[in-house]
């Protein structure tokens, strides 16, 4: 049997030029959607047993354990990040461990495209499509937030001070990519606060 052909949502896009920040697609990311009640102790314990971490209960936070990360999505929903290879295995393990506990675990590794934006001024670029208060200290590394981005739904993950991952449903990947190309153009760079030249 020949090898399986696998293609990420943005595989056909070229490395962008002329931007004020860096933009690329992250392709090796496994994702598992986990539903269960944070108030259900059995559920939380089972998840911890498999993932090695306590699913975060605080809204908009994330927790890591080794190469596994859990992003809070709702009071009864998390997105588990890991390598693609590991996603299958973790999904099976979670399902097995959860057994009859009221829950729903789905491998959704192929459902979203992940766009990595990196560099000085990345928040300003994102603010051209998002109405969140991204300059606020609430948006420290680790923060997770669903948002409306341009005309689509997206999930924002603050990886580091100037590194952001934007998750969009894969059918919108090209749109999101093009939107960032348009708003991150170097001549359109905006600095929101900080010292500026004295206006003449």
């Amino acid at each position, binding site marked *: 049997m020949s090898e399986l052909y696998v293609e990420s949502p943005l595989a056909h896009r070229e490395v962008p030029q002329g931007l004020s920040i860096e933009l690329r697609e992250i392709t090796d990311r496994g994702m598992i959607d986990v539903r269960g009640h944070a108030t259900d102790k059995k559920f939380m314990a089972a998840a911890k047993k498999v993932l090695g971490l306590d699913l975060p209960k605080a809204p908009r936070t994330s927790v890591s354990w080794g190469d596994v990360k859990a992003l809070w999505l*709702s*009071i009864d929903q998390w997105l588990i990040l890991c390598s693609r290879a590991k996603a299958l295995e973790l999904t099976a393990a979670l399902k097995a461990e959860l057994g009859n506990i009221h829950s729903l675990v789905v491998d959704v590794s192929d459902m979203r495209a992940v766009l990595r934006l990196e560099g000085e001024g990345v928040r300003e670029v994102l603010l051209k499509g998002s*109405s969140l208060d991204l300059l606020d200290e609430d948006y420290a590394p680790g923060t997770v937030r669903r948002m409306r981005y341009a005309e689509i739904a997206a999930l924002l993950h603050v990886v580091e001070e100037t590194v952001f991952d934007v998750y969009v449903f894969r059918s919108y990947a090209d749109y999101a990519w093009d939107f960032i190309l348009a708003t991150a153009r170097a001549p359109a760079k905006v600095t929101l606060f900080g010292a500026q030249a004295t206006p003449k």
Partner: protein
Amino acid sequence: MLVVHCPVCGAEGDETDFHGGGQAHVRRPATHDPANVSDEAQRDYLFIRHNPKGLHFERWRCDRGCGKWFHAARDTVTMEFKAFYGISELPPREVMEQATGEWATYFKDRLKAEAKS
């Protein structure tokens, strides 16, 4: 553009991050006694709406946040939100007391019914 606050996850954001879902506390008669819903009761459920000029109670969904539905009390003239509360809850007492017209009657009846049970 209103600022809406989700009482479930605490997210705050533009109205476009949320989804307005119309009047709150509408009772679906068929859920309770499907065999005995009059045409008028069905009409009221589907079409008749409180439409106050002033304090109103409505449903919203935290569309771009936790995805949960919740309730809000809002003034339809000033657009000021007076409270955000859970989807299975009644508004805070002091807000209920500010209600007028049909809403005042509604809350009075609800409280009476609750006191009884």
